[in-house]
């Protein structure tokens, strides 16, 4: 049985339907990527799973229980890392306060136990304890996102939603955070719903992929398989629009065009 199951989920904002009868499953310890262009319904899916928007129809189950019928505290098992690191953390609070707050809500224990847990969380997200007394304004984008991940982990979730969590970061920071997500899965066994429009990141991180187009799931399956041999025309376009460096460097035609002076950027545009 899957850990998280989304069944025929629809989300509408007024008369605009953002998500139409989407279904997907996420197993424990699995990383499922949800990809699609802007406006395809990725964030609506994430927010509905997070309980931040009310679905128009359909249901979301965790361990087989319909979350809509369960006490709201059970939703703590699902936490989210947002896209914008600057808006993710309260600018008035220190990192210590930000990480202590969820522990207080969980009634984790006395101050000493919470402090120990905060140190463990910092180690998990590979941050220095020296940052604890800083406010978000004194952190880099990557550090902010790591704090946001640590805050989410403090709630001891079983599912982590990463909604375009890397898109506001530079390439090298993205790369280190991808490694962090992979190591978190290894160390904690957490399941991750990784929402992204970056197929290269998805290829590197995800076990399975789900492709959304205009609010509908058009294709899903094993990540390597879907990206290597896409079936749906939209998935084919999506894959064709991105360059996989490893594959491109095996392609004689590509190498010939590069030799003729076509830049990688121009090649990408084609």
């Amino acid at each position, binding site marked *: 049985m899957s850990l998280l199951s989304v069944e025929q989920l629809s989300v509408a904002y007024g008369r605009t339907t953002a998500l139409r009868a989407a279904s997907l499953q996420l197993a424990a310890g699995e990383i499922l990527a949800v990809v699609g262009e802007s406006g395809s319904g990725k964030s609506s899916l994430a927010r509905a799973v997070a309980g931040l928007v009310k679905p128009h129809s359909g249901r979301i189950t965790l361990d087989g229980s319909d979350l809509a019928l369960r006490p709201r505290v059970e939703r*703590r098992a699902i936490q989210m890392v947002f*896209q914008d690191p600057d808006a993710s953390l309260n600018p008035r609070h220190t990192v210590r306060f930000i990480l202590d707050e969820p522990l207080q*809500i969980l009634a984790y224990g006395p101050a000493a136990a919470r402090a120990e847990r905060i140190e463990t969380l910092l180690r998990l997200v590979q941050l220095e304890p020296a940052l604890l007394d800083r406010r978000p304004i004194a952190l880099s984008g990557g550090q902010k996102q790591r704090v946001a991940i640590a*805050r989410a982990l403090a709630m001891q979730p079983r599912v982590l939603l990463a909604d375009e969590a890397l898109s506001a970061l530079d390439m090298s920071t993205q790369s280190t955070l991808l490694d962090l997500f992979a190591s978190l899965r290894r160390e904690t066994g957490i399941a991750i719903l990784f929402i992204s429009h970056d197929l290269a990141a998805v290829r590197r991180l995800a076990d399975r992929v789900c492709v959304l187009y205009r609010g509908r799931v058009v294709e899903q399956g094993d990540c390597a398989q879907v990206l290597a041999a896409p079936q749906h025309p939209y998935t084919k376009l999506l894959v064709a629009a991105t360059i996989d460096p490893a594959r491109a460097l095996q392609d004689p035609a590509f190498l010939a065009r590069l030799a003729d002076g076509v830049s990688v950027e121009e090649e990408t545009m084609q």
Partner: protein
Amino acid sequence: MTAQRRLLRFAFILLLVLVAVALLGPFLVARDPMRIDLAARFLAPLQAGHLLGCDQLGRDVAARLLAGLRWSLGIAAGATLIAFLLGTAIGLLAARSRALFGTALRQVTIFTQSFPVFVLAVSIVAVIGKSGFATLVLTLGLVTWPVFARVVQAEASSLFTREYVLAAEMMQMGGARLLLRHVLPALVPSLSVLLVFHFADMIIAESALSFLGIGAPLGAATWGGMLNESRAHMLTAPWMLLAPAACLVLLVVGAHALGQRLREATA
């Protein structure tokens, strides 16, 4: 320091001095502001121990000025507090409630604000038919809360969509904790500016009502009442007019200057 900044600083200090004078009033001028002494009618300033002279009934103008200052500050502070508490609560509710209730609250706010405050206040005081400190405080507070509700609703609506607030919601944080730790602190800069400007507006509203003889008990020392009484004697006893008028202008300008400084500081 620019001339504008010097003026602002001066006005700010002036406001503090006026508040201190109001608090220390009974110790500064020991005379009873209500005591009539017909032998001292229209006594000019600095005569017979009357610093600012006497009015048409021989009452000490300085004592009445200080009593009026306490009255004005008390009413402005009380009305501002009521408007702030009520407006903030309704604004937060309107921002938080997504469905019909929130829309209804927003419409009630707009409807209440569509009435001219002064006309509404006069009508309410007239209907109650009872004058006094509490009547004025309640009336002015109850007709001006939409000012706070509109600002709080607009800012809080935006805050409730901020990602750190959404993250707090996902922790299933209690409503009170969410408000106290994440929403209200972010409202402090704009609310503090609004509080000061509203306080100045309430000083003017109270004086205007007193000038019309509405709200204050008969014979009570109020700046509006003093201005009204001085009109008939402004040529023969100008001190009766100048003292309350100057104090009213200074207090309102001082409050506005403070509001302006706060606005600059929090921008």
